[in-house]
């Protein structure tokens, strides 16, 4: 590989990692603060992508579609928290997994009824439909640069929000001592509902902005869910910082795994083995730090 290829792949890896962060951060927040394992989280990514596809079709404007989609996802999050998730806070993980698995099945059927089972594609918005020429025959798409920048801005806003706002204080307090937070007059139920809806919006938003660079297809939620769980486990359950570091690691390893060739005994073990590489990374990290990179020991 020459330097330009490595640069391009690194950019792709970082971009994939940042996108994973958006999905995984919601997952890790919901687990870390509310103690809920939400395996339906991937469905929101899938729903986001389908919403993007529909809205672009109906409205014909990527930006308006994005805005409406996020609002719809946020409201969906509020409703789901009210109908299902709030009953799971003091239940054990098995019950949480069963209920959220039920949600996966419901969303999958609904998706099939509403949108069908076809694979779709979403056009890159005209404003970002260009590329930057790197060498004579290599270029990097502007859309991917925009996508990475958006993810970085959201990540910074999240860190600032958690560290420096009153809501962030409430979130951290609730994570530390739920009873005491209530006893200080804070409606923790409302804070939880907001966080859940925020997590849903982030996942859906990721699905929407990734739609133009990947296709929109029925199984996309399951795929991203598994990788996001790998990210959350590597980073440490409940740690936003951990999710960021792990997402970038996973993004880079997965991307380079797919373009590397490595011959052992005359057999090329990459890219065939690339799919395994992130799980190998997870196993390796868990061997030395069972609580994940930034996880707290229990």
């Amino acid at each position: 590989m020459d330097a330009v290829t490595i640069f391009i792949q690194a950019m792709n890896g970082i971009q994939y990692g940042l996108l994973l962060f958006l999905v995984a951060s919601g997952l890790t927040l919901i687990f870390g603060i509310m103690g809920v394992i939400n395996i339906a989280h991937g469905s929101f990514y899938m729903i986001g992508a389908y919403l993007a596809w529909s809205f672009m079709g109906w409205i014909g404007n990527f930006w308006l579609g994005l805005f409406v989609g996020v609002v719809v996802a946020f409201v969906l999050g509020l409703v789901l928290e009210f109908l299902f998730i709030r009953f799971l806070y003091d239940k054990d993980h098995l019950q949480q997994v069963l209920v959220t698995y039920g949600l996966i099945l419901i969303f999958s059927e609904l998706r099939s009824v509403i949108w069908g089972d076809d694979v779709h594609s979403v056009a890159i918005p005209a404003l970002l439909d260009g590329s930057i020429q790197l060498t004579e025959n290599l270029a990097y798409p502007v859309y991917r640069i925009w996508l990475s920048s958006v993810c970085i801005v959201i990540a910074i806003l999240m860190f600032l929000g958690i560290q420096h706002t009153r809501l962030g204080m409430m979130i951290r307090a609730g994570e530390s001592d739920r009873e005491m937070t209530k006893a200080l007059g804070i409606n923790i139920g409302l804070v939880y509902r907001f966080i859940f809806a925020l997590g849903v919006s982030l996942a859906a938003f990721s699905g929407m902005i990734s739609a133009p660079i990947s296709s929109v297809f029925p199984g996309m939620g399951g795929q991203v869910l598994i990788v996001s769980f790998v990210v959350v486990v590597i980073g440490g359950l409940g740690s936003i910082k951990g999710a960021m570091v792990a997402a970038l690691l996973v993004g880079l390893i997965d991307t380079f795994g797919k373009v590397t060739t490595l011959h052992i005994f005359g057999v090329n073990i990459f890219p065939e083995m690339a799919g395994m590489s992130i799980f190998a990374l997870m196993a390796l990290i868990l061997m030395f730090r069972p609580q994940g990179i930034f996880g707290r020991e229990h």
Partner: protein
Amino acid sequence: MSNALMTVKDLHSHYGMSHVLRGVSLEINSGETIALMGRNGMGKTTLIKCLLGLVPATSGDIIFREQDAKLLSTHLLAKAGIAYVPEGRGIFKNLSVKENLFLAARSGFEGRMDWTYDRVLDSFPRLKERLTHGGQQLSGGEQQMLSIGRALLTNPDLLILDEATEGLAPLIAQDIWNIIDVIKASGISTLIVDKNFKSLSKISNRCVVMVKGEIVFNDISSQLIARPEALKNWLGV
């Protein structure tokens, strides 16, 4: 009794199969300091948690300022004017001292603002030096001061302290008793649980003794001190 801030009538509570509170009745008047006493496992903490809505009552009534407190969730009771300093202090370990205080600060009933951020820091000068420290970096005494300061910042009418000086060195414990004296003087009703019978009976207007989920004594402390046999049986002092 027109000046009853809180009235508890025939309160029962179960924890799984065990009947923890067996018909507790109690009145807390405005400005009164009540010592809640009893050996471990007699139901003091359960009673406190019931009053705060943290543990459900099976039957009976809790009236706080003419409202049915059983219908209110914990955060609404807190907003109505009940503050809580729990056993183990309940400090948010991942928040700084300043954030612990900021999170609690608000005006009390009818907009009262007797306790401000500055007044709390003046009352607890040790906290002033530790504002940016995380909750987990504090000593036990500092944590208790923070917990009390935080409770005061909600400008409550009723302050409930569970194990006020547990695990504190005698000098630090004395600091806490002095602060409770100031709180008492400021007119806030307090319900205090503590193992130190002497200090507790001295500071309180009234002693309430619990045995096996029931109140067996509810009178001024001198009446309790006059009964050494009962003291030994109920409290082991």
